[in-house]
């Protein structure tokens, strides 16, 4: 490899000296005699040439790229869901084309069987009547959704997406250990893994002749398009996500972006006139096809789970009306049934008149008396699972149970045998991962992906390899903290380059750049703008107060400090019930608390978390850099925080917020989304300024404290400008002019109002002659400011000046607050949440 460091035999030895595959399982890289399998040789040599140090660097590089690209997997722990960085091991799993071809054939056959089975279960149910599949196995499965019986069975392609989890047995056979049919996840992660590895090992990747993934996504896109109702030549396709709290939200946003679809949540859609519409800002936009990543039972609260807030009421009715295509169809989770594996060979013979090519892991359904007797007798060798692989239902290893627990389990099975299956314990094959500069053998599973095409299924020539978190871990799951890998299927000859961006054989028409911004997204962007601005004001003020408390800046008289602290208390909503702010002698601790206490409404940390939540909800609309900046802000202000670092932390926060603002400004197209972000920002900035100016300036007159103005100037970022203009003098009239009226100062109140007025006009499409409620309010605020008598600034010590100034600032604050309400009423009213009718008996 041209980019490899010099290697020596000792490097190779060091790299491999910890690699100890377990003799009882199959190792993907080494044969049982320890010799590297031929198709791994090239990779092994290349790694050895790289040397351990370089390999470590590449590992770090994969992490860095994954982090930069914002690849995360949400891990649910108790009530909070934390985005966890995606962990990718740089060594791919390698399979030869020959072996892959056999696997591929088996997968296609299995998908075909499952598709026919699905149509039968929601249609004639011949297999149940004929006893080929025991009725109890299906009829007791929570995924068998009776309202879907007439929805699936008359569809042209009942199954569009299918994923199978494969594991290799010690004798080298690939077995299917799980079928995923309702909303298979992971194909986006597989794609991202591929993109990262091709960057980490450019020449190795190129020279290995790896099958490309793009063909799969192309097939998927064509199939989704074909699901549109007849006559739709350029259908509007949307990815239906369960939202940022979903484990795989990153992937939903990523796939939507890659495939060029709108990302929507159930609440963004509404069913009217028997069809599905997107609640866009400018009204309802028809949606023709949904790529669904919401579980079956949550899709429609009218006909399925009534308490679901993730779905769209009436969706099943729209599907039944034939006005929308959906992949996968609602109801497909009936196939995610562990017990089906025991009957698939018979089903395959009944439906295709063929033998099942790709075996499943050996499975006993306890609803069958003979199988149950076997299970009870061999309990310790088996794994017990419910037929319904629900995340909350546990997989039980009888071998690790006490005898009392085993008895209890046997009793539970005896009470409802049809709900349980037993499977042989898997002895997974192992694969090398880089661990502390060396290779370590870890158990792995492979998830493969299929998409329906016009006459069958296209298999993704790759997949998502998941590796156990430790060499002896029994389970492989992303939720439990595993590592992922790419799968390289090595072509026998070089592949032609295909990407989604290349011209397609069938013209798909121009993909519309904006298929409508969902009203919810606009709402979140508006609040993202508001919180970004609020956080910045908060950080700036806290910084100025802290600098003065710590003596780095001129110390104002105690009166002044009291006023500053009062401003902080007002801004952070921490005024005590009596309206008093913290005493000066306790101020430091109080400021520290206002930095980090997330339970305190209005604290910096609180605002940052609100900012991150709003940002997370519209992540797909932000550039990767902008989103990353939000995440770093979150990390910057994480407790514990010592006073000695507080100023530096605030400094960094202000900088990062500026970076975020800049990134949004540079990285977002000037569509409606950007307008809402910007309006939110200007509106909040205006409101914050109005409050601060009133508290510090107006009250400052009363206290005759000019040093306050300096703090105010610094907090408002205009100190430099001011000093440049006025040197060390601080004429109050000039200070006011700069902060209040100077439209050339981008931090003045007037500047916010000018911007706001023009933004609101552009968004609503109003003209001077015809103004709606929002642009009237924006104009009123601006005019109120413009009509302020500037002569008064020359007589700042006149009490009447303070009075009229206070009145002005209160008025503007009130107008801005009304403007915010008006925008909410006008644009976001579509974001109502649905309710269930009270039922009676």
């Amino acid at each position, binding site marked *: 490899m041209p980019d490899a460091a010099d290697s020596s035999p000792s490097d190779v030895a060091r790299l491999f000296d910890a690699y100890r595959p377990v003799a009882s399982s199959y190792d993907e890289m080494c044969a049982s005699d320890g010799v590297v399998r031929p198709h791994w040789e090239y990779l092994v040599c290349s790694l050895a040439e790289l040397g351990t140090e370089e390999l470590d660097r590449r590992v770090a590089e994969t992490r860095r790229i994954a982090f930069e690209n914002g690849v995360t997997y949400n891990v649910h722990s108790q009530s909070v869901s934390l985005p966890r960085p995606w962990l990718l091991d740089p060594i791919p799993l390698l399979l030869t084309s020959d072996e892959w071809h056999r696997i591929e054939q088996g997968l296609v056959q299995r998908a075909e069987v499952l598709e026919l089975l699905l149509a039968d279960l929601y249609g004639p149910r011949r297999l149940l009547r004929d006893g080929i599949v025991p009725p109890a196995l299906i009829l007791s499965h929570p995924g068998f959704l*009776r309202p879907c019986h007439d929805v699936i069975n008359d569809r042209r392609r009942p199954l569009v997406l299918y994923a199978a989890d494969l594991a290799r047995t010690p004798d080298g056979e690939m077995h299917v250990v799980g079928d995923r049919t309702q909303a298979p996840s992971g194909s986006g992660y597989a794609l991202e893994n591929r993109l990262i590895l091709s960057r980490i090992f450019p020449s190795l990747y190129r020279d290995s002749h790896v099958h490309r993934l793009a063909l799969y996504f192309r097939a998927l896109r064509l199939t989704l398009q074909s699901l549109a109702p007849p006559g739709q030549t350029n259908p509007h396709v949307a990815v239906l996500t369960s939202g940022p709290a979903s484990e795989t939200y990153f992937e939903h946003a990523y796939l939507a972006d890659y495939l060029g679809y709108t990302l929507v949540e159930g609440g963004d859609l509404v069913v009217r006139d028997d069809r599905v519409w997107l609640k866009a800002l400018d009204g309802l936009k028809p949606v023709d096809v949904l790529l669904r990543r919401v579980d079956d039972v949550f899709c429609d609260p009218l006909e399925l789970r009534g308490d679901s807030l993730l779905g769209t009421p009436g969706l099943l009715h729209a599907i039944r009306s034939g006005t929308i295509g959906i992949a996968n169809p609602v109801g497909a989770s009936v196939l995610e049934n562990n017990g089906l594996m025991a009957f698939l060979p018979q089903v395959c013979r009944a439906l295709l008149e063929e033998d099942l090519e790709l075996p499943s892991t050996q499975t006993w359904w306890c609803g069958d008396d003979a199988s149950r007797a076997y299970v009870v007798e061999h309990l310790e060798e088996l794994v017990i699972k419910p037929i319904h692989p629900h995340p909350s239902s546990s997989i039980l290893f009888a071998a690790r149970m006490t005898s009392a627990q085993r008895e209890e389990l046997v009793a539970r099975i005896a009470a409802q045998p049809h709900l349980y299956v037993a499977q042989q314990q898997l002895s997974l094959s192992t694969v090398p991962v880089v661990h502390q500069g060396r290779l370590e053998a870890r158990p792995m599973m492979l998830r493969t992906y299929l998409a329906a095409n016009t006459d069958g299924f296209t298999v993704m020539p790759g997949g998502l390899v998941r590796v156990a978190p430790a060499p002896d871990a029994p389970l492989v799951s992303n939720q439990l903290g595993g590592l992922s890998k790419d799968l390289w299927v090595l072509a026998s000859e070089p592949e032609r380059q295909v990407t989604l961006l290349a011209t397609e054989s069938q013209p798909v028409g121009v993909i519309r750049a904006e298929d409508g911004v969902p009203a919810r997204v606009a709402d979140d962007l508006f609040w993202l703008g508001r919180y970004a601005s609020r956080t910045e004001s908060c950080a700036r003020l806290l910084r100025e107060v802290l600098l003065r408390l710590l003596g780095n800046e001129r110390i104002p008289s105690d009166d002044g400090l009291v006023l500053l602290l009062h401003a902080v208390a007002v801004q952070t909503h921490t005024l005590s019930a009596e309206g008093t702010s913290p005493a000066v002698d306790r101020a430091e601790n109080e400021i520290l608390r206002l930095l980090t206490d997330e339970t305190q409404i209005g604290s910096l940390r609180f605002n940052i978390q609100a900012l991150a939540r709003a940002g997370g909800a519209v992540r797909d609309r932000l550039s990767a850099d902008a989103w990353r900046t939000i995440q770093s802000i979150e990390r910057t202000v994480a407790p514990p925080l010592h006073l000695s670092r507080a100023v530096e932390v605030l400094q960094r926060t202000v900088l990062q917020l500026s970076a975020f603002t800049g990134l949004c400004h540079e990285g977002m197209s000037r569509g409606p989304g950007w307008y809402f972000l910007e309006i939110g920002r200007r509106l909040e900035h205006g409101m914050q300024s109005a409050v601060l100016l009133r508290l510090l300036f107006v009250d400052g007159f009363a206290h005759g404290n000019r040093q306050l103005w300096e703090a105010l100037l610094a907090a408002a970022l205009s100190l430099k400008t001011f000093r440049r203009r006025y040197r060390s003098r601080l004429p109050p009239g000039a200070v006011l002019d700069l902060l209040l009226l100077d439209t050339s100062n981008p931090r003045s109140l007037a500047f916010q109002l000018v911007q706001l007025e023009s933004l609101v006009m552009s968004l609503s499409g109003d003209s001077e002659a015809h103004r709606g409620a929002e642009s009237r309010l924006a104009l009123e605020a601006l005019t109120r400011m413009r009509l302020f008598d500037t002569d008064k600034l020359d007589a700042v010590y006149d009490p009447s000046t303070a009075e009229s100034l206070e009145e002005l600032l209160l008025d503007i604050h009130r107008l801005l607050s009304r403007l915010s309400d008006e925008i909410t009423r006008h644009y976001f009213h579509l974001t109502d949440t*649905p*309710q269930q009718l009270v039922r009676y008996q």
Partner: protein
Amino acid sequence: MKLRVVHTTQYRYGAPVTLCHNEAHLIPRSTPRQRCLEGRVETEPIPSRYRERTDYFGNPLVYFAIHDPHDVLRVTATAVVEVDPIDSADHGKSPPWEQVATGFTKGTTLLEAQELVLDSPLVALHAELVSFAKPSFPPGRPLLEAVSDLNRRIHEELSYAPRSTNISTPLSVVLRERRGVCQDFAHLAIGCLRSFGLPARYVSGYVESEPPPGRSRIDGADASHAWFSVFDPAAGWVDFDPTNDQLVSDRHVTTAWGRDYSDVTPLKGIFFGGGSHTLDVSVDVSRVEGQCGVNG
């Protein structure tokens, strides 16, 4: 006998509802024992969308949506149903209950019966159900005799207490407190039967509101009613009304059946806006002129 059913449901909202989607199991199905001569659902305001279809269990199901803002939703279901009198079955002639419990699973033709022996969303297997039912099921007792006894015991041991429960009250609470409404009694009986491996289904319907001369008024007549049906391989499905301790007669109109209440909810809906809301229900079941006294 010919019965006319008028079932009115009225929702009054605190704020306007901008959009609602609803499903109604309010049109009676035709069965071997009854013919639905007329059945319709009308709403106020007039629905923007209205469609009738047949659900998984063969019941008529109405979907309607209202797109115009409204403060009140009034749903009126009207039906005329002709119900045949029942033959007073000789319960002693039915097969022993154990034979039914094991027998029907052998043949796979009766998919429906197989389905109705399994747990359903509102009726899950529970040890308390078995112990409650046990006294009615001594070994070898003819099925219908056993069920009839269970029906009587539910009527005697539990008190009919309107508004004491709601649809989310679990069966264990109903059993513990020994009271409930017709839905609870039907669920209880179904749970008992299924825990012995006997297929049982939930039937939703109405009973005649005004009693014929000389007979007492029936509980559950002022709202939609519910009872259960047990599968006897010889006699087919036999209906029992535990609320009134009787076999279902020609005074009962069947609307729909399913595994439990959740499959045949008379009216459900999802709406946008609306704030809080209140509900009024009235049901009137009367004999159609000229048919009076046929069974009196």
